C-alpha cells in the first residue's frame, strides 16, 4: 500500500514496507526505464504531484540562503505588531497579514509566519530525508545480506527485525528522549536544546524503527532476483560476495527502493510533526513544520490563519509525495493497478 498510518498513532512508527511483501515485490525493474518514464509523464496527477514536491524541495533548499540574506526572518520579534491586551494576538485582520508578513505574524512574538514555515520546511525535510536514507540504506544492506546468504544469517536478521518491531516505538522514543538527546548532544556539536542534537535524535529513532520494514521488502526482492540466471553466472565466475551484492543485485532493486523512498518521506514528515506535538524534536526558536504547528493548534478560534497554515502545508506535501510514489509504482510496474 502507499499510505502508512504514520503520525505515530498505534505504538509503531511508520513502517516503510507498509504492505505485505507480495504487494511491492512486483516492482522489480522489469519494465524498461524509458517506457516507465513515458507512462509516468502521461499520468497527469503524478506530474502535478511531482511539480509540487519539486517546489517544496526548491523552497527548502532556498530557505537557508534567503534567511542569510535577510529575505526571510524567522526569529526576530515584532512585538509592536501584537496586542498585549488581547494575549498578544496579531494586530489587524487575518492574523496580521500585510506586505511584509504575507501569512501574518505569530501571536505574542510577532515573528513572521511565512518565514517560519518556509524555513521550518527546510528542517522538516532535512529530518525526513536523512531518516529515510538511513532507514533505507541500513534496511537495504541487511535485507540484501539476509536474502542472499540465507541460513542462520537470514534467521538472525529476521529475529532482529521481529525484536525491533516488538518495541512500542513511540513510547520508547518518548521515554528515552532526554537521555537520547543528551547522548546526541555529547557526540554532536550543540547543547541539549540546540537543533542538531534534537533533530539527530528524531532521525535516529525514525531510522531505528524504520529499517526493518525496508529490510523485509528488499529481502523479498533479493530472493526473487537471486533466482535470475545472471546472478548464478556471477557466482559461477567466482565474483566476490560484495561484488555480487552491489554490482549484480542492487541495480535490480532501484525500482522498489525508489518507491519505498517516495512513500517513506511523507510518513516521516508527518512523524516529525507528531513528535513535535509530543514535544520531541527540534525546539523553537528554530522552526520546523511540526513545532510551528504545535504552537498554532490552540488558535483555532483566535487566529484561524495561523492555526490552519502549517497543517495545510504538511497535508499538501504528504499528499503530493504519496501521489508521486503511486505514480512511480504504476509507471515502474503497470501490472499493479494503482
Amino acid at each position, binding site marked *: 500500500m502507499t499510505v502508512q498510518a504514520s503520525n505515530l498513532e498505534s505504538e509503531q512508527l511508520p513502517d516503510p514496507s507498509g504492505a505485505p511483501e507480495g504487494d511491492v515485490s512486483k516492482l522489480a525493474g522489469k519494465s524498461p526505464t524509458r517506457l516507465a518514464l513515458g507512462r509516468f509523464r502521461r499520468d497527469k496527477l503524478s506530474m502535478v504531484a511531482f511539480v509540487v514536491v519539486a517546489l517544496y524541495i526548491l523552497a527548502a533548499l532556498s530557505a537557508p540562503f534567503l534567511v542569510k540574506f535577510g529575505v526571510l526572518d524567522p526569529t526576530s520579534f515584532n512585538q509592536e505588531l501584537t496586542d498585549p491586551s*488581547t494575549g498578544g494576538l496579531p494586530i489587524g485582520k487575518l492574523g496580521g497579514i500585510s506586505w511584509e508578513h504575507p501569512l501574518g505574524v505569530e501571536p*505574542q512574538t510577532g515573528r513572521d509566519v511565512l518565514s517560519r514555515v518556509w524555513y521550518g520546511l527546510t528542517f522538516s525535510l532535512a529530518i525526513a530525508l536523512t531518516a529515510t536514507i538511513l532507514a533505507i540504506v541500513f534496511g537495504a544492506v541487511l535485507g540484501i545480506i539476509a536474502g542472499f546468504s540465507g541460513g542462520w544469517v537470514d534467521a538472525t536478521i529476521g529475529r532482529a527485525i521481529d525484536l525491533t518491531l516488538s518495541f512500542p516505538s513511540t513510547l520508547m522514543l518518548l521515554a528515552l528522549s532526554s537521555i537520547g538527546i543528551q547522548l546526541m548532544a555529547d557526540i554532536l556539536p550543540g547543547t541539549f*536544546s540546540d537543533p542538531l542534537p534534537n533533530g539527530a535524535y528524531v532521525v535516529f529513532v525514525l531510522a531505528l524503527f524504520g529499517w526493518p520494514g525496508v529490510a523485509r521488502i528488499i529481502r523479498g526482492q533479493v530472493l526473487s532476483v537471486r533466482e535470475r540466471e545472471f546472478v548464478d553466472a556471477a557466482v559461477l565466475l567466482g565474483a566476490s560476495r560484495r561484488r555480487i551484492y552491489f554490482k549484480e543485485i542492487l541495480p535490480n532493486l532501484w525500482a522498489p527502493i525508489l518507491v519505498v523512498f517516495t512513500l517513506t518521506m511523507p510518513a516521516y514528515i508527518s512523524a516529525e510533526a507528531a513528535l513535535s506535538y509530543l514535544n520531541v524534536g527540534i525546539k*523553537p526558536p528554530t522552526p520546523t513544520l511540526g513545532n510551528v504547528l504545535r504552537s498554532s493548534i490552540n488558535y483555532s478560534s*483566535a487566529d484561524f490563519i495561523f492555526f490552519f497554515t502549517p497543517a495545510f502545508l504538511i497535508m499538501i506535501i504528504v499528499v503530493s509525495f504519496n501521489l508521486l510514489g503511486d505514480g512511480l509504482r504504476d509507471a515502474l510496474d503497470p501490472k499493479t493497478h494503482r
Partner: protein
Amino acid sequence: MFKYRKRVLAASAAIALAAGLAACGGDDGGESSDNPTGDAAATGEAGGTLNYLIYAPIEHVDPQRIYVGRDITNFSRTVYRQLVTFPISTDPEVSNTPVPDLATDTGTSEQGGKVWSFTVKDGVKWEDGQPITCEDFKYGASRVFATDVITGGPNYLLSYLDIPTDEKTGLPAYNGPYKGDGQELFDKAITCDGNTITYNFKKPWPDFPLAVAGLHMMDPYRQDKDQGDKSNFQIFSNGPYKLEGTWSKNKGATLVRNENYDPATDDPDNIRRALPESIVFNIGQTTETIYDQLIADSGDAQTAVTGQRVPPAYYNQIEGAVADRSSLQASPYVDYLVPNFRNMTDPKVREALKVATNAEAWINAGGGEKAYAPAESIVNPAVVGYQDNPAFSGPQEGDPEAAKALLEEAGVQTPFPITFTYPSSETADKQAAALKETWDAAGFDVTLDGLGDTYYDVIQKPNKESDVIWGGWGADWPSAITVTPPLFDSRINLTQNSDGQDYGAYKSDEFNSLVDQAQEAGTLEDQTAALQEADIVLGQDVAYIPLEIAQFYFLYGSKVTGFTTTPASSMYPDLGAIGVES
C-alpha cells in the same frame, strides 16, 4: 517548594514544566477587576453542586503530603481543618492573619518563639463522630518524619523540631511512627497535656501560626486510619464536607456534606460558608477544553470554577457578557532570574545584565498584561511586610545602550558569552527568545539552553555551565522568611554536590547575618524588618532579577455566586465563599 507549585501551575497552564515560568505573580492589592464580591460580607444561597475543573491529576490528597497552593486552600475550606487558618478576605492584612480553627486561640509562644502551644477545641469531631484529640495532632506531625513513606510534603518540621540529627544519614534520629526508631525523642519534642499540644523547636519560629495555617503538615491524623503510602488518596474529613466514595486520581471525586460538622459551633467566624450541597472535583479535561466550555457556558460549566489560568489564545473570546464572569488577580508567585556567581563574578557585568533585561518583552511573549504583572522584588506583594526593592523600580523594557556602557566600564571583551538555562516549554521558549534580543543588543552573546524534566537536577549541579538561570517561587506561608532565606542563604543551600535552591551560588555574609537576625527575632515585626533589609542587599548584589508576577485570570460559570479569590486561597477560587444558584 516551588518545584511542585511550579509543576502544578505548569500543568494547569497545560504546558509542561515551565508554565512554571509563567506561573508567578503579585499584585499591589488594588485592581480587584471584575471581581463581583470581594469581602467576607457577601453571601450566596446554599445548595446546588459546584464543579471544580482541574486539568492535571492531583499528586497527593494526604494532608501531610499536600504541597500545592490550590490544593492546600481547597482542602482547607472543605475537609481538612487546621489549628488556625486564614479567613476569607480580599484584604491581605486580614486574610494573612490566622484565626482560630480547631484550636481555641491562635497559639501562645514562649522563649522567643522556640516553644508554641495550642489548645484543641472541645466538641470538634472527625467525620465518624469521634472527637479530635491532641494525640491526633501529634500523630499527624509524626508522619512528617517517615520520610521514606510520606514523601513529597513540606518538611520544615525536620529542621525546626527539637530532635537530634543522625550523623550517618544526616536526617533526624526519629524516622516516623511506622518503624518507630527514636520515638522517645519525638515524644519529648511534641507533648500533649490534656487538650493542649506543645511544640518544642531548635530555633525560634515566630511565624509558626502562619506555617500552620498556610500548610497541612501540622494537621491532625487518626492513627487507626493511617495506611502510609496507601493513604495517599484517602480523605478522612473533619471539615464541612466529606469524600463520597473514593478519590480517583484521574477523574477526581465528589464531596458531600459531613453531618458531623455543625456550622453553628464549628464555624463561628464564617471562614467556611460551605454553600454548595456538594462539590465535584472534575479532573481530566485539558485547559483549552475547560475554557471552551466555560466560554460557551454550557451544561455543567455553568456551575463550574477552575484554577486553570485562561490561555492567552482565549483572551479575545472573553469580552462582553463573558467578561462579566472573569476575574483578574495577581498570583502569590514571582518569576525571577539569577546570575551564576561562579561565572559572573564582576558586579558591573551583573548590573549590565540587569539593565539589559527586557522584562516587558518577556511578559508580552508570555501573553501580555493579562498573563503577567511587572515585579519589583522577588518577594510577592501578597506577603506580609512587602516592599518594592529600589534596585528594580522603574521601567523594565531593558536599556541595551546603558548596559553596553556598563560592560565597557567592566572592561570585559564583548560580545560577552552567556548561557541562559530555563525549563523549556511552548511559552518559555518564546519568552527566552525575547530576553535574548536585548541581551544580545547590549553586547552579550546569548546561548538559550532550554531543558526538560532534568531541569532542576542540572541547575542544582555546582559545575553547571549556566550563567543565567530561571527560577520561580511562591511563599509557603505569607512571610518573607519562606522566600529569600531558602533561596539565598548559602549555608543551608551550598553543599559539595548541590547548590540546593541557591542556583546562582550566591554567598554573602552580610545577607546571611540578616537572615540570622530574622530567624532569631522573637516578633513578626523584627523579623520583617530584617528581611526587608536582606532583600535590599540582594538587590545591590544583583543576586536576582525579578521578571514578573503571574496574573491569575479565571473564568467561572454563570450560575456561580460569590466568586472570590483571596490571599488566603493563594488567589485561587476560595471555596469557602463560593456558591451556586441551584
